């Protein structure tokens, strides 16, 4: 190391150190940059992100129709066994027998939110909801039936 390099190194070091301190100093003096949210206070206006995995839900449209055909792929793909699909046989308008879901049971208490059921569903019947406050006083309340009462399959899903 020559003397010139030595001196140059010192100044270069000081410059880069000051650069770093300028960044942290900037963040200290700009409270607008803080990303932490005060959770219980901001509950009313809290917006979760679109990709947030709160719980598995089955979206229904306004005519109380869902897209689940009862194929059971979600049940097979679930690593924890948190999904149980109970099917029944119904007779359609043109007199044919057809499989349909009776109950799509979802055990939230066993779910790890891996998303395999949502990913593997061939008819996009499942999705992730934004609800995350899951605390309840009774464990049985964590077992949910995802299809609503009296709901039917959408026409376009076969």
């Amino acid at each position: 190391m020559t003397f010139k390099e030595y001196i140059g190194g010192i100044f270069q070091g000081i410059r880069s150190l000051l650069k770093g301190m300028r960044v942290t100093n900037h963040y200290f003096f700009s409270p607008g940059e803080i990303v932490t949210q005060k959770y219980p206070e901001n509950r009313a206006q809290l917006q979760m992100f679109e990709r947030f995995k709160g719980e598995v839900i089955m979206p229904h449209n306004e005519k109380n129709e869902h897209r689940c055909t009862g194929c059971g792929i979600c049940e097979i793909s679930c690593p924890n066994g948190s999904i149980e699909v109970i099917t029944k046989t119904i007779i359609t308008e043109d007199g044919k027998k057809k499989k349909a879901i009776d109950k799509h049971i979802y055990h939230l208490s066993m779910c790890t939110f891996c998303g395999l059921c949502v990913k593997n569903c061939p008819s996009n019947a499942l999705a992730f909801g934004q609800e995350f406050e899951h605390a309840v006083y009774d464990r049985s309340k964590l077992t949910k039936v995802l299809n609503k009462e009296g709901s039917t399959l959408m026409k376009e899903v076969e």
Partner: protein
Amino acid sequence: MTGLVYDFSVITQSIDHYLVSHWGPSLAATIEFVLVGILYLLIYALVGLMLVYAERRICAFIQCRLGPNRVGPQGIFQTIADFIKLLLKENIRIERADKLLFFVAPFIIIVGSFLAFGTIPFAKGLHALDPDIGLFFIMAATSIGVIGILLAGWSSNSKYSLIGAMRSGAQIVSYELSVGLAIVTMVILTGTLQLSEIIEMQRDGWFIFKGHIPAILSFVILLIAGTAETNRGPFDLAEAESELTAGFHTEYSGIKFAFFFLAEYMNMFVLASVATTLFLGGWMPLHLGNFETFNHVMDFIPPLVWFLVKVFTVIYIIMLFKWTYPRLRIDQLLSLEWKYLLPINLFNLILMSVIVLLGLHF
């Protein structure tokens, strides 16, 4: 003229007269010792807790977080709650540790920093000790700490502690040199070691302005070397959390751990106070040349406020170091000291001597 408005020696002397007239000189001296001791212990603990809180808030803001904000308004009682928690915690006895040394180590550390804390001049006439050799005394008292660290590491009988203590020993011994030389550089300018006199000499301008280039250089060196000497980041290899869990105080719990923690923060406070006293004029208000009205307005601000504002500015800079830079490796640490700081320091010493001899300072 200036500063005479707030002279705390009047108050302390009147208390002294009152005590002497009531109880006689010997008993009065005892009472004063006890009073000053209790007062300083209280201030020591409170300032320490406040610094911990400040550090947590500052690092949170730097990292775009909020930090502790639940206990009390803006979370100011968080560290007090933590302290109570530490008091209530079990003091685990380490089976294979050297009992006596293990017990003594935290006290040695805290005594070292407490002694140094006693000499800090908070305002005119507001200091517990004002020896002629004030700066030397602070240097001596703070270097007691390294014995405590080595003892703590060695007596714990744990590998983490031992490695942490050894690193810390090498680090403190190296950086003590730079701190000492930076202070010696300033002593050439001041010509005295007494803290109150050093501050009195800065009545017409702080030393960082009076001593210009060498003073600024040694201010920067003192900050860097002092940060290393107090074992703070980025020089915190002695307690590198990710490698050594907690370094020399791995085996300590409860109130003894709190002692280490408090002593570390108070060492930082002492360092900032020394830097303030030597370079930024201690409790002297900021005066700008001949702006009489400005100077008078500045005089109205109490010296204690001036002192604390300056100290906390320096502490903020030291905290900024910690939360900006990544931790150094041990070889980087030592090469920074021996290859860079020490030669620059020696050069700076000669520069300062020349400037003082030729009268080039203001």
